[in-house]
């Protein structure tokens, strides 16, 4: 894999949008990896939270928008809680989700959800799930 780095990519509209929506400053992250180290689901992610931030720092959009990371993040805030630089990977992943959902692309198809889930699951799981996965 080769990433092309250029001034245009570093300051792309996409990168600025992520910063604006998430309220985070990407350059604050010094890539210590603490967030990835503590994230309960990073084992399942294509790129761990710190790698997602790194790709954003490099201005690389394709790799991270195709990665599953944003859909796997459970929003537990362990990353933010221990980040020595007060960066919230959770906010950044939420921003990536928003960018997808705001385009009208759903991650979960509501009609595919199994009936028993809808019947037995706590309302909060459904409401929250909808917010995270459905536009």
């Amino acid at each position, binding site marked *: 894999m080769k990433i092309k780095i250029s001034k245009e990519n570093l300051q792309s509209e996409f990168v600025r949008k992520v910063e604006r929506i998430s*309220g985070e400053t990407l350059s604050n992250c010094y890539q210590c990896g603490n967030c990835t180290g503590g994230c309960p689901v990073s084992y399942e992610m294509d790129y761990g939270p710190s790698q997602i931030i790194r790709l954003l720092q490099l201005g690389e959009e394709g790799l991270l928008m195709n990665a599953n990371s944003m859909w796997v993040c*459970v929003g537990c805030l362990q990353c933010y809680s221990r980040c020595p630089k007060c960066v919230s990977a959770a906010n950044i992943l939420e921003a990536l989700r928003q960018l997808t959902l705001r385009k009208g692309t759903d991650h979960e198809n509501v009609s595919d959800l199994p009936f028993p889930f809808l019947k037995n699951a706590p309302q909060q799981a459904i409401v929250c799930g909808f917010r995270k996965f459905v536009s």
Partner: protein
Amino acid sequence: MKIPYYPGCTLNTVAKDFDTSAREAATVLGLELKELDQWNCCGASFPLTPDNVMGLTAPTKVLVNARKEGDTVTTLCSVCYNVLKRTNKAINDDRDRRNLINEFIEEEYDGSLQVIHFLEVLRDRIGFDKVKNLVKRPLKGIKTGTYYGCMLLRPFEDIGIDDPEAPVIFEDLLRSLGCEPVEFPNKIECCGAHLAMGNEDVVVRLSGNVMTSAIDSGADLIVTSCPLCQYNLEKSQKRLVQDTADYSGIPVLYFTQILGLALGQSEDMLGFEKNICDIRPLLKEKGV
């Protein structure tokens, strides 16, 4: 003492046990959990992106209604607690967002409410000592794994109920009921949360880790404070019991159920029969 209480949607439906056991226990403690006259769903997640003001309108409406009934509101569900408390703080701290939301919902809310969790009511308003004195059935010898999950603790700056790395509020309560809390590594790790929708494998792994690490640390029982944690743990428990030969299971209960038990409520009232792993044989075994 009367205290305005926001149940939230889940406690009104699938987590009814959580709600009723808490109300009963409160009565014993001389407290009335007064359900808000008017309330709506809080949205079940605090929007992590600060530009999402829409996500704050639902919880703000809850706060507005609660404010009409007093200066405090209490919740049982950790998620509601997290959402309401953070929303309240956001409105208090951030003038721009406050104005925007107020304009939208046509209210004048200033964030002056105090959002507290029922655990805080027990700790700070009643006192664990007093709870201890009212215990009728001390749960001696029962080793409890107190599962905090995420929403009760993080982020510390907004929630601040206890130390986010080594919280004790749960343990202190259970100790006052006669239990022996045990330390287990996963007590502050996530259960899988909303991945219940669509990614059950992750949930089973995370919730499974919570339960096995509690079992490995010698716990007889896990207590929770959130219907979603409860659901994820129980759901995973079912899978694990089915699929894993040497997994024996562990009862998972709301803390209010344990509280009710210790305060002398009858076992039948507490809905123990719904659990995958029954606590009643354990009670018998320990002779309490």
